[in-house]
């Protein structure tokens, strides 16, 4: 119904039921705590990372990698250099966990509007754009692979 891959749709649905700002924050912090699970492994990249992987509008210095899988899908990895970039870590975990291994055409259609659905209206414009930049890098990687 949403057009998102199933796992991402589930997460977006979870957040749609949260109206309390503190509850939303707690949930996102829990998710950000799993960042090591999607952090780019050293065999793919170590710091300093290549500029082509840099999310330029993200103030938290986020990086995105897409690694081709044998089944034709991609696995997504991330790094967030700012240790205080919890929101960037949270969206990275959500994208890594829900879009890795999903059909490329679905990943390619994932749009930045999930940021507002997940983070709510409290997110500042600059922060929202940075987070959308991370989504956009993943989406673009899938589009590039398709073409």
């Amino acid at each position, binding site marked *: 119904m949403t057009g998102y891959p199933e796992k991402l749709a589930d997460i977006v649905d979870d957040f749609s039921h949260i109206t309390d*700002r*503190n509850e939303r*924050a*707690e949930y*996102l*912090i829990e998710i*950000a705590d799993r960042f090591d699970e999607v952090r780019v492994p050293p065999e793919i990249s170590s710091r300093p990372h290549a500029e082509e992987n840099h999310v*330029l*509008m993200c*103030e*938290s210095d986020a990086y995105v990698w897409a690694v081709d899988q044998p089944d034709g899908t991609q696995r997504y990895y991330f790094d967030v250099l*700012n*240790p*205080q*970039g*919890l*929101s960037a870590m*949270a969206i990275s975990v959500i994208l890594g966990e829900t879009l890795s291994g999903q059909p490329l055409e679905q990943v390619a259609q994932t749009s*930045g509007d999930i940021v507002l659905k997940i*983070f709510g*209206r*409290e*997110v*500042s*414009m*600059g*922060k929202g*754009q*940075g987070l*959308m*930049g991370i989504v*956009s*890098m993943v989406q*673009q990687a899938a589009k590039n692979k398709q073409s």
Partner: protein
Amino acid sequence: MTDLSNRGYARPDALVSTDWVAQHLNDPNVRVIESNEDPLLYPSGHIPGAVQVDWTADLNDPVRRDYLDREGFERLASRIGITPETTVVFYGDKNNWWATYAFWVFQLFGHTSAAVMDGGRTKWEKEGRELTRELPSYAATTYSASERDDSRIRAFRDQVFQHVREGKPLVDVRSPGEYSGELLHMPNYPQEGALRGGHIPGAKNVPWARAANPDDGTFKPAEELKAIYESEIGLKPDQDVIAYCRIGERSSHTWFVLTYLLGYPNVRNYDGSWTEWGNSVGVPIEK
């Protein structure tokens, strides 16, 4: 980093150290306030006793693009349990950029008993000091605020027009890519909230974070700041200066530096910044 009193600042009282804050955690005359860009940071752990002031929820008018009014400020002050006599100490993420923004808004209401914790959250964390997720509770206070005074430290678009016509100095504190307008033209790139890229004619570019030491977020000593703002771009203390960025938060950091650390008496923050100028019809733009 040298002691705050030895850095040559014009108003060293506008800064406090992490040691000072640690020593005043239970001081009823001090309220520590965290202001961040990232709304997840404060709930993930904050300085014991610190309250959160969030720019979207607390400092902005919920409907129109403006700051809270006097009644709103009084409600905010009551919620965080301060009186006009309370010393408020701001700290936050990334070189205190949102902390100086909150500091600036508090100055619109004349709450002058205020300081910024040098180094902010980064320095506090690097020193291994305590953070807690426990939310403090303070008795509500009655705060009688002045009307918001936008005349001294805030600039509006028409005033910036006049400023440009008179050839007075403007400091664009955004990144070089934003200043040049290049960012708006990059493919697959979230645009920065403006239809046009570039900068206000005559503005000199000094990215805001150059005023801070990248390792711990502390402010650079006055001599280094003068080298940046006076030697490099030719500002003089007696000038009428306007700083701007995209929405006024990064430029509030530069406003703080010029006003309190270098002692410039006439500095204003153009909070409309590029999201107003770059969307306005017919305004002059340089690239």
